[in-house]
């Protein structure tokens, strides 16, 4: 089977500043890859470039998902093609009701797939069922998107969206940031429940601790816009012990 995602010699700039300087990465169906790296290495830029955020300009290379280049696709088209980004800082949308938002997202994908819009009652049932497992109560679901949510609640709400949208590729951008141990466990359990042979994930993190909960198949070290080392899950432990110092030289 062809790989789910191929990143080929990817170069990207923000403004005039080159951030990604030749990334190569292949993710097969069902694999979990982790990208670790120091601050400023280009981790968040990579997540935005994959999701198609405006202002993050690809200056070279290609991103191919299921055999199709994503570069000409807008953020919403990429999402409907199976890309999902769990935000490091989920965005508050005052006045945008949570259920309407979730439904619009689910329906956008269903319409793209040629399916009918989801039945309202069925949808509420589905959201409640998935929310319960993530400790999200009805009160949170009724509020405007992310408004008045704690840091941990925002991250759980990201995972709820991921569960509802069933993406082929989930990019988790520093999902552990701002989480205490209990919240980290809830979020990780939520992510692990979504693991299957067809779904792949790219877990971006600064710290190794998330990878104790979401155990990756592969770990890559990103520094100064390039993947400097790749290995198995033990590479994360090595970084945890010796830090990122010296990684640049290894390339």
């Amino acid at each position, binding site marked *: 089977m062809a790989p789910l995602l191929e990143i080929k010699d990817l170069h990207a700039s923000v403004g005039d500043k080159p951030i990604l300087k030749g990334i190569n990465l292949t993710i097969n169906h069902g694999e979990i890859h982790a990208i670790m790296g120091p601050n400023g290495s280009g981790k968040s830029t990579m997540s935005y470039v994959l999701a198609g955020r405006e202002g993050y300009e690809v200056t070279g290379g290609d991103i191919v998902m299921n055999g199709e280049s994503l570069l000409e696709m807008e953020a919403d088209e990429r999402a409907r093609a199976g890309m*999902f980004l769990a935000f490091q800082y989920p965005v508050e949308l005052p006045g945008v009701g949570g259920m309407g*938002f979730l439904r*619009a997202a689910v329906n956008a994908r269903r319409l793209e797939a040629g399916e009918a819009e989801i039945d309202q009652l069925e949808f509420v049932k589905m959201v409640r069922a998935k929310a319960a497992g993530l400790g999200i109560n009805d009160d949170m679901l009724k509020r405007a998107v992310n408004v008045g949510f704690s840091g941990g609640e925002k991250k759980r709400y990201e995972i709820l969206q991921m569960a509802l949208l069933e993406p082929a590729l989930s990019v988790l951008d520093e999902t552990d940031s701002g989480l205490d141990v209990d919240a980290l466990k809830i979020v990780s359990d939520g992510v692990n429940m979504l693991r299957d042979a067809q779904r792949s994930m790219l877990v971006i993190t600064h710290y190794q601790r998330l990878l104790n909960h979401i155990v990756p198949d592969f770990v890559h070290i990103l520094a100064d816009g390039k993947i400097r080392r790749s290995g198995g899950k033990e590479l994360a432990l090595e970084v945890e012990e010796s830090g990122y110092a010296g990684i640049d030289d290894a390339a």
Partner: protein
Amino acid sequence: MPGSMMQPDLGQIGALQGARAAAMARWQSNGWPDHRAEAWRFTRLSAIDKMELRPAGDAGPMAVSRPTSLPANAVVLTFHNGIMDTAGLDALPAGVTASTLDGNEASLDDLAGLVPVGHPVSNLSLAAMTGGLCLDIVGDIAAPIILLFGGDDNAISTHPVVLVKLASGASAVVGEWHQAAVGLSAPLVAIDLAAGATLDYAKVQFDSRSTTHVAATGLRLGTGARFDGFQLSVGGKLARLETHVTLTGEDADCTLSAIYLGRNSQHHDITSNMAHNKGHCHSSQIIRGVLDDSARGVFQGKVYVAPDAQKTDGNQMSRALLLSRKAEANTKPELEIYADDVLCAHGATVGELDETQLFYLTSRGIRPETARAMLIDAFLQDAIDGIGNADLAAMLRPVVDQWMTAGGNR
């Protein structure tokens, strides 16, 4: 400017008496404000004098189609080309007494004392009145009374004049719905709420894109009276909705919120003057504007607090959302406070849709046009949520939705 060159051409109007004669004299000496008038700095009316207009004649009213979103139980009074269809008056509920203003000097004097002083429409439309209606309301009137203004002649100006008086303790729901295609629509409205009276009010300005709409409304609230008002300005080429409120008794409560939605080269102006003449009153104004293409929006809001009007609570918040680089919003909040124990807050912002919020929505697969509509809707929501009367809220909502689907999708 010599009277003969001013528009509309009032040459056909015969001799007037009393308040109307005085209004005519003021109109002839003042005419439209020119570019030096501070109150009209952002809204220029010079285009009117380039039109060829005459006040609507006495042609019998024709049917005006009833908007589908009017409350089902509404009593509708129709004006066609500024002239009232008196047949509708029969359907008014008990407690509402309708009379014509034409020749009713006492009511015309009342009205002249309530409408915005110095406003060109206070002069012009009183002088050129094409249809005059007085509603005297006593008791609790549940059915909304909707004044429906249609029209189909771009060579005419319309000057409907309406006086609504609520007796002490009365309550009513009144709406104005404008959907005329005329050269100039210049409604003049006066509302007088006696002590303890309550009025829920909404105005929808949905005139044709060729129409210039210049409205003047005067409002007086007695002790403990409550006015819950909302204006929605969507139609017209140029529209100015100006309302002057005088709070003349303690514990009066006035809400005067508005939404304007502009596209192409439309110009919307919401101007208010809130005079707290007595203490212990509350006033609130939430203004939201959405402007696309090269549309322009203006909000001018003055809050005046008289020297002994202590414990006044007056607030005003205006926000404009620009969807295009060529759109423009001007806001001029103005506080004039002569009492020392007051709570007055005002704020004004002008901004664009938030790129981060748009990205968040589109990253979930939501199409950009839908994402924009969701954010615009959210922006307008708290203004709409403030409408207390469910029938009036339901009347406005489809107009906003229609505006969004008609081209907010870009």
